[in-house]
């Protein structure tokens, strides 16, 4: 069929408001993936609470992320090696979602930029995976690619937290993986990243990761420059990969082993080198 890609584990399609939906077959688990953006705060940097969002701090101006007006489309390509869904959100946010017959994960190849700033507003782009898992404010992030640390929303284990920044105060470094667990249903959802990103779970069942930022004011922490990287005269374009991986955790060991293998493979992908050759040299090779 032309409007979804699927294998024996998943069925992936785009819903009417342009979000990508993943339904796990034979398991009561669904994920909706969507892109959003925060407006970067701009302060006079006179005192600590009036600092702008910048290279050293993430400080959104509002209490929630904004949605993108969906003006996009999608195309599907199926074949023996890979099934791809080319998903365009608007003219500077798009992604390719891939499933491979031999793999259990879903590959999100996202592309963001150049972030428009003609409106003089700094923007911070996130991707959000919203699932139906009951996670009880808890999520897990890795610590530099090693053990997973338990995180609880609006809570610190060593002091009574009075949170002034309800969003960035719940953001943590995700070096390779962020995980949700539904203890009752014994379901797990992992998002593996190909580079260190900021991430959080601001609502039960949700995971969000910061993909790209373009800000117009320095945050007065010393670099004395706004986080406003450009290339070829336009805002920087970033492209990266997330692997979404999860489901029933029947046998913990294989699940954990598979995750580790996948995380390593994503972070240290094989290199491709090559050279043009003529036919005769193929023969003697």
């Amino acid at each position, binding site marked *: 069929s032309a409007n979804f890609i699927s294998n024996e584990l998943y069925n992936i399609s785009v819903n009417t408001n342009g979000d990508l939906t993943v339904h796990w077959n034979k398991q009561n688990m669904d994920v909706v993936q969507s892109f959003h953006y925060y407006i970067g705060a701009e302060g006079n940097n006179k005192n600590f609470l009036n600092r702008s969002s910048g290279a050293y701090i993430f400080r959104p101006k509002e209490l929630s992320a904004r949605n993108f007006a969906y003006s996009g489309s999608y195309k599907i390509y199926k074949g023996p090696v890979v099934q791809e869904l080319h998903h365009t959100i608007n003219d500077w946010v798009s992604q390719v979602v891939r499933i491979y017959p*031999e793999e259990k994960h879903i590959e999100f190849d996202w592309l963001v930029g150049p972030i428009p700033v003609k409106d003089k507003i700094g923007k911070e782009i996130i991707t959000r995976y919203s699932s139906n898992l009951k996670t009880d404010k808890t999520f897990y992030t890795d610590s530099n690619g090693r053990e997973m640390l338990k995180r609880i929303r609006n809570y610190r284990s060593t002091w009574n937290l009075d949170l002034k920044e309800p969003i960035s105060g719940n953001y943590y470094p995700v070096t390779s993986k962020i995980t949700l667990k539904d203890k009752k249903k014994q379901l797990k959802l992992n998002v593996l990243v190909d580079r260190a990103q900021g991430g959080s779970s601001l609502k039960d069942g949700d995971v969000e990761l910061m993909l790209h930022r373009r800000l117009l004011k320095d945050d007065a922490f010393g670099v*004395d420059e706004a986080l406003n990287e450009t*290339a070829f005269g336009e805002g920087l374009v970033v492209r990266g990969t997330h692997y979404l991986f999860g489901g029933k955790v029947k046998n913990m060991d294989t699940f954990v082993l598979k995750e580790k293998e996948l995380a390593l493979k994503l972070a240290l992908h094989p290199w491709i080198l090559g050279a043009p050759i003529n036919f005769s040299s193929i023969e003697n090779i």
Partner: protein
Amino acid sequence: DKSLEHFREAMGVMQHHDAVTGTEKQLVANDYSRILYKSMDQAGEIISKAIWKWSGMENSTAASSKLFTCLQLNISSCEFSEKSDTFIAVVYNPLSRPVSTYIRVPVQENSYIVQSLTDGVYPTVQIVPIPEAVQKIPGRKNNAINEVVFRTLDIPPLGILVYSIEKIQENVVEQPQ
């Protein structure tokens, strides 16, 4: 080897916490990437020699051709695969365990045949279009519009697999979208 000196210098300079976290000024960040690129570019020679030696082909005529890295695969761009009708792709596995994964090589045409030069097998190949958004990335100067996708099985730890990829004149049936 002289070219390794450049890597050592680059790693020496980039011990600074700014280089690790990206909190340096823009011009400094540009200089870091210039230093890294220069090191990679000058290491081409030593990479070629190493790979021809590992594969036991250092004395073959093929070893006279320099192997090129594809540093712009992140924008689906690769000099040797777009401009040549026949080329070899060497896949190097940096992990200390065998890895099976998918290889995507940017090309201009839409029908290619791939053969493993390690065991002679012809892996299944699929040609997939490069998304328009990628083709429009500012600064992407090339004409690849498709990618050859195939699966590599068990690339040896810290080892390589070698494939020949050749354009074939076959009218490909456009698959229904």
